[in-house]
């Protein structure tokens, strides 16, 4: 099982992000992590939520274009060089990172990095081989 991420297409229009958040709020879906990629005329909102299927369903119902895909989540010790170490492993394995975002978990000891590599399975394999703590969906959703 991989960690699932919800992506949604946002037209560059006032209030659109708020509308998406409203849909999730009404469905009582809490957001674990989020990032927005923006271009001149559209944006892509990426979300990690405890119940991706439900989120996809309610968002689709409200006419959002939604996709679910796999990402890798790793726990990184919250200190200088933590992220660099992870990226070094991927670079050495010749794996390209499409995008990533990070957040600090509640206890503050660890940072969680969400990574999207070209091939999720190769990325995961390389990280595991180097002894990095790759988080399970359950661990991520309950953060």
């Amino acid at each position, binding site marked *: 099982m991989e960690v699932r991420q919800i*992506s949604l297409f946002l037209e560059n229009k006032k209030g659109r992000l708020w509308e998406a958040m409203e849909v999730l709020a009404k469905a009582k879906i809490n957001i674990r992590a989020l990032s927005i990629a923006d271009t001149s005329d559209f944006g892509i909102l990426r979300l990690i939520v405890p119940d991706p299927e439900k989120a996809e369903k309610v968002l689709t119902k409200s006419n959002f*274009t939604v996709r679910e895909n796999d990402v890798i989540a790793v726990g990184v010790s919250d200190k200088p060089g933590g992220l660099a170490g992870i990226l070094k492993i991927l670079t050495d394995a010749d794996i390209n990172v499409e995008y990533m975002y990070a957040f600090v978990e509640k206890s503050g000891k660890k940072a969680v990095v969400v990574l999207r590599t070209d091939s999720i399975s190769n990325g995961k394999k390389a990280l595991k081989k180097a002894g990095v703590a790759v988080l399970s969906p359950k661990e991520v959703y309950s953060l």
Partner: protein
Amino acid sequence: MIWNKEAECMRIGKRENLQLERMRAILRRAYKNVPYYKKRFDEMNVKPGDIKSLKDLKNFPFTTKTDLREGYPFGLFAVPRKEIIEVHTSSGTTGKPTVSGYTKKDIEIWGEVVARALTMCGASKDDIIQNGYGYGLFTGGLGVHYGAQRIGATVVPVSAGQTKRHLDIMQDFGSTILTCTPSYALYLTEAAVEAGINIKKLKLKAGCFGAEMWTDRMRDEIEKRFHLMALNIYGLTEIIGPGVAQECDQKNGLHIFEDHFYPEVVSPETLEPLPDGEKGELVLTTLTREGMPMIRFRTRDITTLRREICKCGRTLVRMDRITGRTDDMLKIRGVLIFPYQIEKALLEIKGVEPHYQIIVTRPQHLDEIEVQVETSKKLFSDEVKHLEEVKKKIEKRIENSIGLRVKVTLVEPKTLPRSEGKAKRVIDKRQL
């Protein structure tokens, strides 16, 4: 099934004799009863008696929408007003509308030609025809209505733009034939899915779609979503309304009911008639209309006439699906473009929905085209680069088709206006 075998399958030579006889008669009536025609014929120094063969019609003047506006409202009637039992107008997007007047016999002819068209779609007495064309001044609603009644089918006059009612009736009545604009048909499929209707359970077997330009790709989409046979109908208010031509189940062009409407295709530049098989502007002459004869009416629609005999057994000439209009032509940086070309390019790309809008602007003395395309689940990706690739791919495809660079903007699904009548595809913001 063929509604009027004698007329629709008539030997070509015999039909030409009939057309010639009718052409002479209508030119005589137009000349005698309509001052506008008398003036124009005299100016061109032509007389109804000059018609020796069908081809001689080319010496007679054209009639344009502007001419009709000048005669507004009743100036082109060829009978006293009291003989007119019904009038329709076509939408006046630019200036005054044009008026079309029908005598009792004209209404009968209209019923006859639409009956032929609906029969081509498989309609008979046994069918329930759900009519989604607008009733009122627009000819679509009543035209289909008269044709359906001529056949003796059960017609349900829902009219345009009552989506919920359309969906309810479709399910509850078990309608077998749907008539509306193709863009509204697509809209209905979306609405049906949203309402959770099991489309496979509907009894629809055919759709008679027209009143706007559409493409084969749109046909495929409608057929796939609605599980019916989608056929193209053509007509215009100035000539009679719907029922000038209709596609048969061969889906190989629309048969023109040429015993009532004589077609020519002329070059949009020289206005000279073109041989069959060449693309140009369709010009129509009514051969039997009493109330308002139309002599060489310039339809502005671009098509090609084909004489090869159709497998359906009809000997009627066929016209290609309309591929553009001489007056909707956009002139962008001096290049002539039809919105149809952009639509066709768009729909060749997998995952692109047939909903789009073309916006023309002139920011710095140079025309720019923006094409707004709705995203779909199939096009969307979590990666920006993939979406940028989709945009570039669409831009490239359109550029290959029209020879100009365009900017494609992806917009959210269901945000572009869905018209319940004719889809508005082009917004020209240039201030010329």
